[in-house]
């Protein structure tokens, strides 16, 4: 179902006009209220007054995750905190999270956008929606929660974990829609089978998955095991959270909310804007955000845009499923892991070298993380008890800082380096 026909099916010419208007006003507000943008524009001798068309956007500087880290916590807010009614944060870099704020209007728009994604995935007011994203600082759970409430569905704020209870509630409360990461859905599917429960005895009809890549193979497996319709949706916590794009019933790409964001595809190396249809890094500019506007934010996600008409009637263009990233970031259990985070942890700990390898794998549908770390000579010959305590320390810091539990394996000095250079920092065996 189409939630907001007026905007989702707007004639292209009107979308373009709306984008230009909102881009210009966003630039004026960002320039006036965010010193980061004022400085950056002034340095480059660009004035927001010069932006006369969407094409001119290409003259503007990018915003990166590093920029956000540099203005921790509130440096890039465009409004004072008294206007902000919600604060979320996502995994940051250099040990500090990235903080985002929302005004009342921002939250209102966010709910509207997640309602669009949920409606496109088939959720209606008669649905019982079980939200199995972690509630808390992360945007996934709350974003989709508000959208589901707006639609009028019955929302179960289940959060993650406790799969036994999760499945019991799914059976007893007659959940019809599951909202989670694809890997957790797969885990639930396997759990159900292991308990001897017939998945057809559930009321479950659809799954709306996001937070991590959902390749076709996973979609197929979940759909076949749980007998549900699976749609993929996409969000970026720094930009807003879920609601940026989502699949419709035709599953031929994710319709992007162009009335709230301008997407660009750039070459991650040259940073040149690429033509429609080309594959590259997705760059987003917010058009309506009041508290935390972002101009040309580099998402690091690799995708391509498709402007051909979709049979569903929506005129918003579509982006391909995101299956990989332009940097060596790893998305695991819906969390982003940056090599720099791991480095900062290793720097703190006595006896190890900042030489490491992150290995992501999927065992029985659940993401696993293994971290190989080189120890130095002194420690390597040390008592096994000592080694265990070092691994435990790293594992604890990983949980605290990155929010992911992983298994640490200490390896001999120099073993992660070869004459050709260091071994790859990230090995993703899930793809």
């Amino acid at each position, binding site marked *: 179902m189409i939630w907001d026909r007026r905007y989702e099916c707007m004639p292209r010419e009107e979308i373009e006009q709306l984008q230009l*208007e909102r881009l210009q006003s966003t630039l004026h507000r960002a320039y006036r209220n965010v010193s980061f943008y004022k400085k950056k524009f002034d340095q480059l001798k660009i004035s927001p007054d010069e932006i006369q068309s969407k094409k001119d956007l290409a003259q503007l500087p990018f915003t990166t995750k590093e920029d956000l880290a540099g203005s921790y916590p509130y440096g890039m807010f465009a409004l004072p905190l008294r206007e902000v009614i919600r604060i979320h944060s996502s995994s940051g870099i250099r040990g500090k999270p990235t903080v985002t704020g929302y*005004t009342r209007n921002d939250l209102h728009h966010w709910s509207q956008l997640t309602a669009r994604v949920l409606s496109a995935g088939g959720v209606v007011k008669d649905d019982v929606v079980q939200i199995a994203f972690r509630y808390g600082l992360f945007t996934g759970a709350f974003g989709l929660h508000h959208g589901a409430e707006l639609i009028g569905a019955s929302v179960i704020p289940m959060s993650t974990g406790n799969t036994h209870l999760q499945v019991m509630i799914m059976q007893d409360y007659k959940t019809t829609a599951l909202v989670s990461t694809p890997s957790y859905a797969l885990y639930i599917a396997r759990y159900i089978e292991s308990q001897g429960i017939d998945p057809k005895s559930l009321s479950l009809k659809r799954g709306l998955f996001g937070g991590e890549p959902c390749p076709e193979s996973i979609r197929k497996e979940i759909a076949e095991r749980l007998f549900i319709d699976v749609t993929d949706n996409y969000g970026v916590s720094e930009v807003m959270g879920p609601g940026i794009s989502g699949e419709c019933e035709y599953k031929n790409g994710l319709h992007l909310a162009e009335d709230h964001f301008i997407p660009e595809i750039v070459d991650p190396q040259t940073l040149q804007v690429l033509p429609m249809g080309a594959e590259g890094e997705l760059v987003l500019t917010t058009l309506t955000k009041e508290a935390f506007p972002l101009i040309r934010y580099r998402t690091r996600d690799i995708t391509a845009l498709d402007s051909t008409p979709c049979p569903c009637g929506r005129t918003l263009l579509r982006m391909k499923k995101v299956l990989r990233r332009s940097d060596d970031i790893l998305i695991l259990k819906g969390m982003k892991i940056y090599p720099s985070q791991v480095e900062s942890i290793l720097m703190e700990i006595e006896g190890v070298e900042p030489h490491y390898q992150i290995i992501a794998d999927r065992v029985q549908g659940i993401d696993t993380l293994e971290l190989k770390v080189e120890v130095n000579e002194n420690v390597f010959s040390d008592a096994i008890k000592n080694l265990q305590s070092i691994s435990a320390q790293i594992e604890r810091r990983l949980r605290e800082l990155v929010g992911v539990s992983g298994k640490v394996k200490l390896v001999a000095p120099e073993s992660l380096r070869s004459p050709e250079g260091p071994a790859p920092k990230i090995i993703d065996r899930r793809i």
Partner: protein
Amino acid sequence: MLRVESLSAYYGAIQALRNVSLHVSAGEMVTLLGANGAGKSTLIKVISGIHPSAKGRWFLNGQDISGLPVEEILRRGMGQVPEGRQIFAPLSVLDNLMLGAYSRLRGEGKKTVLQDLESVYELFPILRERKDQRAGTLSGGEQQMLAIGRALMSRPKILLLDEPSMGLAPRIVGMIFQTIQTLRRKGMTILLVEQNAKAALKIADRGYVLENGRILMEGESEDLLNNREVQRAYLGKEYREVWE
């Protein structure tokens, strides 16, 4: 219906508008808010062809009308109710109204014009009562009705209303705004320029906030009413700051 793309306007060396883009869809009522001197009236003057010193493009029904002379723009369906009414005081109410249809009389003949006169009288019965009176003797509210009626006589596709509440008593403002709402309900497309932000946002679908010649915000009326900056600057709601 009306689409303005990156319009800049100048008074000599002074730039009054900077890259203003906005649109009004068919059947929509949009309000343009802003303080004195923000550039609201300049914008109206530029798009209706009165103020010629401008850059950018603007379209009526998809046709480029940028830089066209005022009479041509009027002929293409842009009806204007100017700031301060600008009625012809020595002429009768009826003559003022008929002047509104001046450009149509030759082409269409009197019959359709008289039908329109009838519907203006229906909208504003007081104008029928005073049709032979000199316009200058009308009250402020009645003059505003006359100005709106006169603009309607040109059968506009879009009506530009420049500060219709100016200088009127609150009760009269309420009446004028009700009439504007009635027009909207009848399908008229309206761009309403107002300093009275609260009244305007109550009846408009969307709004733009103009400040120092730039558009700082665009949004549905409800969003603008919820925006604390708009509240502070245009709705007269001051908040005591507890901390900064």
